[in-house]
């Protein structure tokens, strides 16, 4: 028998740890690029590996080999630390989200709060990255990221708290198990009532899922909220001075952020890596997160970029009230269940 500690370490490094996450993140980048390209009537990557599946790898390796320039005027410590943390933080988030089974690698009461905090920290990093590069485009990009955060953070937190109220727990692993518990609960009670409760739960959760997806688009800096890096306006924004290894880390970090965002969407609203049929949880995880990425790509292809003032206005005027109403509905639902 292999000692339990060794298994735990293998889990940390290989599966579902660093190696799996990096491979999976690059796979999801390919899914995103390919699907996005097909929506735009393009082919997307197609020459590296089967249908271009190795293209994200090629990009990453190429960037790692490129010259790494730090601007003379930049604040070198912060400038160097930002890409490292930008990769480390999404990886940390991944250990708090269940992948292999009902429970995450690390799971404790309140880890939802930690995850929301880590997502906020990411935007702080973006701000520091733009600011420390001492480039006008970088500074504008960093400012925009901070402004954007002010407008989507509250609806994001509200949307994430909804399932927590229903599950009566602040642990993501508990929340992920909640839909299966609810189904068990409903199948025991009388038929018309359980259908009514189930339908309203699905409706309320769909609203929460929508809000959370929008906020994740802003968090990931994807169209229509790619304002901090708007290529045609401020030339890549806060990333403009990064090159070589640092840019490779930023890109990989962004990909893992995409995995983390879709994993969180899955865990909070889609029942995590659990499903009705006896299929291994890892497969459920891959299927559900891929669906989340496809949703994100689809929204990306639909809209032009918002302007920062329009985005702030729209978020506070429409999404925040909807999020508050959603919390009210969740409370009412929690009282019934």
């Amino acid at each position: 028998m292999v000692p339990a500690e060794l298994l735990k370490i293998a889990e940390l490094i290989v599966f579902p740890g660093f190696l799996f996450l990096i491979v999976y993140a690059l796979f999801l980048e390919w899914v995103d690029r390919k699907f996005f390209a097909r929506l735009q009537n393009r082919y997307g990557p197609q020459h590296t590996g089967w249908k271009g599946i190795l293209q994200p790898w090629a990009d990453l390796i190429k960037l790692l080999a490129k010259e790494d320039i730090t601007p003379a005027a930049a604040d070198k410590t912060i400038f160097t630390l930002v890409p490292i943390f930008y990769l480390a933080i999404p990886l940390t988030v991944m250990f708090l989200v269940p992948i292999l089974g009902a429970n995450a690698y690390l799971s404790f009461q309140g880890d939802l709060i930690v995850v929301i905090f880590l997502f906020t920290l990411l935007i702080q990093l973006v701000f520091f990255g733009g600011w420390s590069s001492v480039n006008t485009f970088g500074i504008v990009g960093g400012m925009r990221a901070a402004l954007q955060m002010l407008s989507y953070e509250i609806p994001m937190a509200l949307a994430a708290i909804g399932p927590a109220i229903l599950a009566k727990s602040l642990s993501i692993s508990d929340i992920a198990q909640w839909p299966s518990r609810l189904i068990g609960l409903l199948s025991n009670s009388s038929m018309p009532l359980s259908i009514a409760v189930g339908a309203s739960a699905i409706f309320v959760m769909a609203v929460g899922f929508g809000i959370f997806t929008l906020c994740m688009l802003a968090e990931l800096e994807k169209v229509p909220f790619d304002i901090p890096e708007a290529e045609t306006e401020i030339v890549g924004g806060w990333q403009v001075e990064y090159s070589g290894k640092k840019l490779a880390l930023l890109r990989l970090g962004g990909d893992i952020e995409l995995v983390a965002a879709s994993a969180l969407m899955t865990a909070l609203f889609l029942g995590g890596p659990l499903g009705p049929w006896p299929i291994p949880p890892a497969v459920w995880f891959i299927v559900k997160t891929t669906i989340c990425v496809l949703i994100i790509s689809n929204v990306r292809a639909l809209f032009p970029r918002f302007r920062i003032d329009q985005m702030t206005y729209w978020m506070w005027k429409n999404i925040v009230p909807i999020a508050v109403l959603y919390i009210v509905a969740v409370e009412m639902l929690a009282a019934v269940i």
Partner: protein
Amino acid sequence: MGKTEEFIIPVGPQHPALKEPENFTIKVDGEYVVDAKIRPGYNHRGIEKATESRTYIQILYLLERVCGICSICHMTNFCLAVEEAMNLEVPARANYIRTIMHEIERLHSHSLWLGVAAHEIGFDTLFYYIWRDREVIMDLTERISGNRVNKAIPTIGGVRRDIPPELIRDLRKGLDVFEERIKYYKSLILKENTVLNRAVGVGILTPHDAVALAAVGPTLRASGIKSDVRADDPYLVFDEIPFNVMTHDGCDVASRVIVRCDEMLESINVIRYCLDHLPDGPIRVKVPVIVRVPEAEVISLWEAPRGELIHYLKSTGGTMPYRYKIRSPTLGNLPAVQKMLIGNYIADVPIIIAAIDPCFSCTDRMTFVNVNTEKSWVWNNEQLRRYGNKWYQQNS
């Protein structure tokens, strides 16, 4: 409010929003544009000077390369100027074929612009779709002239290629497809709120400013002023063709989009009229290989897709012009851009600049101005090279 800090954002000479090098120095306060300075001159190629040492047939192909998008405009306008100076009568069929090519060029130029505009506001999906449909026009251009970019179809005294009957049939079919797509995009842009958010009320140019700053082309017409060389001073066969000058009184980026969409639909009608009324006969008159132009001074006006294009030819007799001067539409629109930029957001800068459909390689001229004495002078390439070498010897 306390004292706010302004800082300067350079847009260009190298910037993703600009397809050609040009410098816009934008002074911003937070996200607001307070002031803008435009500095052309990064793309000087010395074409005007080069014309003075070439024969007229050589110039024809040199001027075609002034601009990759409106090659027909520069080429045909040059032909018109030379034919005017030589008192040459061009066959009617040639004039009709020139008109067809001219309007096809407007279609491809405007649809290219529409795609670029979508890209500038971050709507890449629309960009890819429009450019896919633009291929219809590009393929037809290739069928007619044999080329996609530098069509080389007009020549002094007529055109080099005829349009055979089976091509006319395909041309009509292609136009039907393209018309339907443009109508669809126009309705989509007018309905889609996220697009309108970025275009309505952005880059305002009042009719008064538009006239005062001498804006031209769709930029002027989008400020509600009915001005089009084709209608005001008809050339080719535009005095025979019924067509409307499209205007819109929104004065903003959205109305520039609408004007260009309407112009495309109108151009399609012009081409259809030309195809219906295409006269028979020869497509060119013979001119000697070495064209001799008598002493003359000609100004030739032309409505390029971007606006009024002025060619000036001065000949003192002989095989080469004494002076050839081109005023391209972008130069006419640059003062207006500065006006449009002030008071908007940084995010609007790319779409405002793009809204005049800038083409800087056509625009750049080299003039040196000493700011202290306000004396200006012009150097040719050789003088500049010598000056540059001397300067580096002294300063290194």
